[in-house]
């Protein structure tokens, strides 16, 4: 134990004293696990790709097929996260604000995309949205194809991402007092004003977190997408699939190259979202 005198005089301790002991132990585990499970594999990825060099990475990224796949992945993931943001908020709102028969059951359904093997989800969605499926057939009448096109990817990613938004926003919605809406109404605000000025700002940080999680999950999603996407090169081929394709062709360097590029873009995107979030927390987070 450090003596009180030492604490006072000598030094800035690494952590503030706490009534719960075990900082050293838990911090050690945190470092080891994060290092071994998260950072080490990513470091080897960078290591492998470093053999390519920046010019090599650029060459891979500018390969038309790779560029198309990266565009598909990031653009559709973004679109899916935006859709999830909107509907996830509504679902979270309904599940916390209203009490109705079957609410808990419905609440449990939200987690299904977490639990279901993604391949199962992909196959079911493909069957439903294919031109002769239940949902696909009416669209097919108007010559709109959903499964085996980019729309199919969007459908799968929306499905996968929804619970992330719902589960991050739900606790914050339940903290919002009903009295806030009532106070706003007694002060003369209309419903839209109440939603925009009183209800949404406190939810903004949680919404952004949910968005970031859904977006990140969508970028990495593989299982459900490959069954519904059709995987047509240059059109509906996602970057994770291209990595597998490259590996099957024993093009390890190409695969790690794509992986590294994805890693860098994802990291940049998440960093950006985190910065926006930090800003919104400062702005709206006086809770």
């Amino acid at each position, binding site marked *: 134990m450090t003596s009180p005198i030492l604490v006072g005089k000598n030094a800035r301790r690494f952590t503030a004293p706490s009534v719960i002991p075990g900082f050293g132990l838990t911090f050690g585990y945190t470092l080891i696990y994060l290092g071994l499970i998260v950072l080490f594999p990513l470091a080897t990825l960078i290591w492998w790709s470093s053999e390519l060099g920046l010019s090599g990475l650029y060459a891979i990224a500018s390969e038309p097929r790779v560029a198309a796949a990266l565009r598909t992945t990031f653009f559709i993931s973004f679109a899916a996260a935006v859709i999830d943001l909107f509907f996830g908020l509504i679902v979270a709102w309904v599940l916390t604000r209203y009490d109705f028969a079957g609410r808990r059951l419905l609440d449990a359904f939200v987690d299904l995309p977490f639990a279901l093997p993604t391949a199962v989800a992909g196959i079911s969605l493909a069957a439903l949205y294919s031109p002769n499926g239940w949902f696909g057939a009416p669209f097919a009448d108007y010559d709109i194809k959903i499964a085996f096109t980019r729309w199919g990817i969007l459908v799968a990613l929306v499905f996968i991402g929804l619970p992330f938004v719902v589960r991050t926003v739900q606790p914050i919605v339940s903290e919002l007092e009903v009295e806030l809406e009532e*106070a*706003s109404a007694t002060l003369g*605000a209309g419903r839209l004003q109440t939603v925009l000025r009183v209800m949404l700002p406190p939810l903004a940080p949680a919404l952004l977190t949910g968005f970031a999680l859904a977006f990140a999950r969508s970028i990495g999603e593989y299982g459900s997408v490959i069954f519904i996407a059709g995987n047509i090169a240059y059109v509906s081929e996602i970057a994770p699939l291209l990595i597998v394709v490259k590996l099957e062709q024993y093009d390890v360097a190409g695969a790690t190259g794509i992986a590294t590029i994805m890693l860098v873009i994802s990291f940049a995107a998440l960093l950006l979202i985190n910065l926006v979030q930090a800003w919104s927390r400062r702005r709206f*987070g006086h809770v």
Partner: protein
Amino acid sequence: MEQDFGAFPALRDVSLDIQPGELVALLGPSGSGKTTLLRVIAGLNSPDRGRVLFDGENATNLPVQDRHVGMVFQNYALFKHMTVADNIAYGLRVRPRRTRPSRAAIKARVAELLQFVQLDGLGGRYPAQLSGGQRQRVALARALAIEPRVLLLDEPFGALDARVRKDLRRWLRDIHKQTGLTTVFVTHDQDEAMELADRVVVLNEGRIEQIGTPEELYDRPASPFVISFVGEAVALPVTIADGHVRFGGRELHIDTHGLRSGPARVFFRPADIAVAAEGNGDLEGRVESLRRTPAGVRATIAIDGYDQTLEIDSPLERSASLGGRVPLSLAKARIFPADENGEYVDAGDGI
């Protein structure tokens, strides 16, 4: 202004007429319907039957937004992501463009209100950085900003500690005097209601037990509930037979005009009973303990046939011996018959 309510699950046959500029307290235990009544006036709840009238004009179906009521919630319901100034300005900023004051006018009004509630210089703070009493005042300023027709306060001092409560009570009284706004507040604290209000509405189980000034409630309580809820009261179970009130083997000299024979209860305040001269007592009690006070003695006295003891102060010369029997006289008492089920309204010690 007039408010009429018909049957409502939490409110039954409530009819209340509030005069302009009045300060009215809705007093009752929890679950008595007082908050429901306040919310009906605000337009946050709608009555199943009955009407709410503002200045004689039917406001029952007027949406909350158009009622122009200033509501202060029990937990303040401040917008935590807005500064104090933004909170106060909110009601002005959300107005449609043609009735919205200019930015400068809003700023001036906010400054004026901040001064009015004695929070000058705190406009840039967030609600989380304020004390409970300060938040309460922000909530009040926010409600006043829209120049409401009525000010409604739900348990305005409920969440504050005793000292702050006292200050705010006096302050609210001043505010009412200065603004002249018709004000209705809900409380379960009878001291608060009695101290602040011009008139007090005592509610119990969704019914109005009595509407009256504090004096009327103290001196002429209309029901056993009122007498035991506002102030301490002792309730003796008695029977009325042929116009005579009997308690145990004794007769109490109480006017029973208009009362049926049968079980009843006699209510009196502890201050209205005293040790009497020998042979003059209405009641008799046994001295359980004696304690010296500066002016005399305080005796704890048990009355036969009543399950609680009374504390009676008396001057030294009338002091009785411990365990001895003393005559007691009643200065003032009220008698209420038991209701049809033969049940008495519980008349413990008040609250």
